[in-house]
């Protein structure tokens, strides 16, 4: 993967009436990279994608694609591929007719079109269905025709808007893996919109977490999970234990926080007196009282067995709760109503400013 910026979005804003749907979004994507836009419903993911495609020009900011400023270029001169949630396959054309459409309107010679159609259809494993009507395809097949149609023109960037959400869960999980393999095979640069965090973590090189028209964090899946940049990012990706408290001191990027479950140390820089949320991931919690670690005690509220792991929810008193993920092999799993003590490393404990709400 080369490091050259391929798609550069700077300061893109979009308003619908009084509502600011995109608020000065910056996003740079490298050639061949697969980036996911992850965020709750209404945060502006589709709007950003449509701005990139040219279907909804932004009110402010610029978009550059493959070294060309395309901010005011109409969609048909942008060379982007879009896979819509509803697929939008042309019902009056066959499978092959749909895939050929982009090349036909570009006036490519017939032999070249045939070759490209065959290649695109075989990439999505639909080589034998070229002459089918769209209405005679299953949902999964339609999804792949939509993909073949988009990649047949070799776009500079492929945009997927919740492209898998219409499929049932099993098919969706298969497609996630297959799609990632396929996109790497054709060396596509792609943006994937989803509000499914598992899909985001599975599919992408980097994830952009969006909230209220802004990108809160742009990071690789591992880093996003292990080092969330904000309370929103923490909440949106994965499970966590969160305890509210007040900063009483600290140094060197570590703060001391007084909480209902006792004094805890966390990474972060806050002035004494600040209201913060102290958080950690469930798999950091271990039974016992680790040395020099954070620890808290409580009564087990529920134990949920999930195969290779077990989730333990502990009532730590004063409205605080601890969520621990223990591996299935752990010798003695606690039972409901047991009194337990958990410890977790300070290095994996974060402090975030408590949201004023």
């Amino acid at each position, binding site marked *: 993967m080369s490091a050259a910026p391929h798609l550069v979005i700077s300061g893109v804003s979009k308003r619908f009436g009084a509502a600011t749907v995109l608020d000065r979004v910056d996003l740079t994507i490298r050639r061949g990279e697969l980036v996911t836009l992850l965020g709750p419903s209404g945060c502006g993911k589709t709007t950003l994608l449509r701005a990139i495609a040219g279907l909804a020009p932004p009110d402010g900011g610029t978009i550059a694609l493959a070294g060309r400023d395309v901010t005011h270029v109409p969609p*048909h001169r942008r060379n982007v591929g*879009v896979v819509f949630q509803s697929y939008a396959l042309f019902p009056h054309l066959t499978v092959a007719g749909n895939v050929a459409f982009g090349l036909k*309107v570009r006036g490519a010679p017939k032999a070249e079109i045939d070759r490209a159609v065959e290649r695109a259809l075989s990439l999505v494993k639909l080589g034998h269905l070229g002459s089918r009507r769209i209405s005679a395809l299953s949902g999964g097949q339609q999804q792949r025709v939509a993909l073949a149609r988009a990649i047949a023109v070799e776009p500079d960037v492929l945009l997927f808007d919740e492209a898998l959400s219409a499929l049932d869960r099993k098919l969706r999980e298969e497609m996630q893996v297959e799609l990632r393999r396929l996109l790497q095979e054709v060396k596509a640069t792609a943006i994937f919109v989803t509000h499914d965090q598992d899909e985001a973590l599975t599919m992408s090189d980097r994830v952009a977490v969006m909230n209220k028209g802004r990108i809160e964090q742009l990071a690789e899946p591992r880093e996003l999970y292990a080092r969330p940049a904000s309370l929103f990012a923490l909440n949106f990706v994965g499970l966590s234990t969160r305890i509210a408290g007040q900063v009483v001191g600290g140094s060197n990027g570590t703060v001391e926080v007084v909480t209902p479950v006792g004094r805890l140390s966390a990474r972060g820089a806050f002035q004494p007196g600040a209201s913060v949320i102290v958080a950690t991931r469930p798999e950091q919690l271990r039974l016992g009282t680790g040395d020099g670690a954070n620890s808290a005690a409580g009564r087990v509220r529920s134990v949920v067995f999930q195969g290779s792991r077990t989730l333990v929810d502990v009532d730590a008193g004063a409205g605080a709760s601890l969520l621990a993920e223990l591996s299935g092999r752990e010798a003695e799993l606690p039972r409901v109503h047991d009194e337990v003590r958990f410890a977790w490393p300070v290095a994996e404990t974060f402090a975030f400013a408590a949201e004023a709400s």
Partner: protein
Amino acid sequence: MTDAVLPAPIVKAAPDRERLAAFGFVAPSVLIIALVFVLPLALLLGVSVLDPKGGVTVAHYARLLGTPYYLGVIWNSLRLGLLTTLIAFLISYPAAFALARARGALRSILLATLFLPLAASVIVKAFAWTILLRSDGLINTVLIAVGIIEDPIRMIFTQTALIVGAVNIFLPFMVLPIYAVVAQLDGRYAEAAATLGASPLVVFFRVILPLTLPGIIAGVALVFSLSVSAYVVPTLLIGEKYPTLATTIAKAYLLAREPGFGAAAGVVLLAIAIIVVALSAMLSREPK
């Protein structure tokens, strides 16, 4: 990953007894259709070839297709049908999009202006046009009063009056079927086509037009068959100068007492309507 397998058709060959039962259910409607539509047609065909003196004759058809006058009559009907259909289509197609795009009260008002005239009889509407177009009619009176013209313009009993009236009267039958299709059209198709490199013009001809064809065909079929066989409209708006198959049929039955000739003209009219409607449906097929 394997392809999702399409379910096999669930309709199996029904046992004879079930088929018999199914036939029992549709039999009444088949009977009614036969009585109401097929029987009169058969009668019409029969009368057109039966010689009152006994035997079978094609004399009526020979007269229709062999006389320059009657060929002119056929051409008049065809012209009326084609021109009305073409102009109605050119007006209706953009109108249907405007209608589909309109929101709220505006849409209701526009739809009402289309639907309400359907409640009035054709005769009333044709007369309304004569009132507008007469030499002492509304348009001439206003134009003279305002001083734009000095002498009344001759508008009634011209071909222009005929076509304008026919288009106006049959317009809803073109707009409504097209509107029904356009209103259902998913805007994503045009967007998908644009992202694939199609300019707005290409989007229109390769996506919008083919997807709205079913509505166009329905509208063309309706308006052509209505206007090619229109009787009241040419009678009131142009009269004797423009004999059509429909007015010829009426004359044959009412004045000349030639039912055989009238029936033959009826068959020719029907054949024209069927051929044009079938042709338009065939031409509209997406070429492979």
